[in-house]
């Protein structure tokens, strides 16, 4: 187990598009474990491989309070979506920024599990928001892309300043 380094906006590596996983092997299972540990440590409720600089289509989610409901999705796809829901989102790659984003309220997801088997499920509410947010990461998209230019620039400036202070 290891805690991985999370990239921060506006790091260009967050814009890379992730490649599908063809073989679910022990290396992938290890990666899923490390990503869960990294997410719990942050603490967060979802993490995509892109955020830890690995361009593979895998993400982890746990929206429970007590780390009791980890979910790993490999090669996830939204096959159906309906309704709208506004939710104040935050992102481990965009620290301390919380902004309202409108996404589909209900989604049907197709993915592969850690045993390499296909599965499908339908969900709504926070889990639906979170899955869509994480799938965006795999496509190089961030929740700040949905905000106005002004808001995005403001967040970007603040984070760039933070990073300079760290160096």
């Amino acid at each position, binding site marked *: 187990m290891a805690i991985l380094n999370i990239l921060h906006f506006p790091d260009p590596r967050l814009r890379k598009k992730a490649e599908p996983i063809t073989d679910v092997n022990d290396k992938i299972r290890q990666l899923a474990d490390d990503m869960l540990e990294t997410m719990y440590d942050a*603490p967060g*409720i979802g993490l995509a491989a892109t955020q830890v600089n690995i361009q593979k289509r895998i993400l982890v989610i746990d929206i429970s*309070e007590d780390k009791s409901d980890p979910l790993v999705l490999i090669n996830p796809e939204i096959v159906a979506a309906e309704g709208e829901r506004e939710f*104040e*989102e935050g992102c481990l790659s*965009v620290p301390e920024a*919380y902004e309202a984003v409108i996404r589909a309220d209900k989604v049907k997801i197709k993915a592969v599990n850690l045993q390499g088997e296909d599965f499908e499920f339908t969900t709504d509410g926070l889990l639906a928001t979170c899955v869509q947010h994480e799938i965006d990461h795999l496509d190089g998209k961030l929740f700040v892309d949905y905000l106005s230019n002004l808001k995005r620039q403001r967040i970007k400036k603040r984070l760039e300043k933070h990073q300079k202070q760290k160096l």
Partner: protein
Amino acid sequence: MANNTRSLCARSAAALTIAEVQLKHRSLNVVMAAFLPQLNDNERSFYQQLCYGVLRLHPTLIFLGNQLLKKPFKNKDADIAALFLTGLYQLRDLRTPSHAAISETVNAAKKLGKQWATGLLNACLRNYQRQHTELEAQLQHNPVAGTAHPEWLLQQYQSDWPDHWQQITQANNQQAPMMLRVNRQQASRETYLQQLLQQDIGATALRDCDDGVLLSKAYDVNALPNFETGMASVQDGAAQLVVKMLDIQPDQHILDACAAPGGKSCHILEQHPDNTLVALDISAERLKQIEQNLSRLQLGAQLKAADASDTDAWWDGELFDRILIDAPCSGSGVIRRHPDIKLLRRPEDITSLAHTQQQLLDKLWPLLKADGLMVYTTCSAFKKENEQQIEAFLQRHPDAKELRFEQAPATARPYGYQRLPGDDVMDGFYYACLRRR
């Protein structure tokens, strides 16, 4: 995805709450009411336990914390300072396993957006674990930290009650039991006790209170049978005894001068709902609470937002058969229910409160019919607000006589009756009943 601010955890919410009480001098109940809806159902009771517990032991935790910190936190990090106290509280006073208490407290710092504090909190809490025997031993030599009371409050108890102050300070640090008042218009106490037992809620009749019920532990009011339809209300027995002294009869015109949140007003009307009751409170905001309570209990009263002592502003000229002055006071008898008093109350408040109490007594006395009764109560344990206040009043008003009771509501004093915290299961309270000749 990051947790958004709405998914606060119990610990980070408690830290923010305590910091707000401390910095902005806001009352705990008001701040908690703002945070509770933001928490998940399963976190609420732990959050409340942390807030109450930390404020109850605040002087002690501050003392221990100062021994562990190299320099105090800045004001802008009051949330982290408060989080540190909740961590110490969990290690000392709760049964949370210590590794969980430390790691979850450190995680809460991340939720507060203060990553920098994680190492500091981790180190200081672990140092407490290592040194706790020596640190706790130091409490014996420090009265403020040892009793968990600020110095002025401790001194006031000691000078008023030299034989009882230890009982009082110990009782102030206990958790208060939950008590109910059964609405006798809807059910007898026996009937309601059975309803409670049927739902596996442990309850017994409260001694000396005709409508009172003592619960075995605290419950959410929504879990209580027929609460929404007004069969019962939450009220300490000490407050329930007030109505007995008022001796409510049918066809009376009654004034409750400082009525919010309305517990005693409702209890008065539950005796004889046809009586006319004028319920005043200086705060229009708090008046809304009376309105809610009355409507839940299906009772009616005339509500007015007014300073009761400014009679020109609200009085219509009709004399009252009964007047209740449940006066604003230090709250020094109910610190177990309102531990924020330890932080919020200042010694100079007592003088101004005593002045307000005197104004209320003097201005409302002429509004009482001949042979009418005025009951003066406080939830204070200080003589200046209680027996000394009534002694001075009787000297100013020769047409007033203090009534003595065979079934006393509390320990008889030269003037009135006083229950000190720890005398029995009920709140600290003062009562005096005055008849106009």
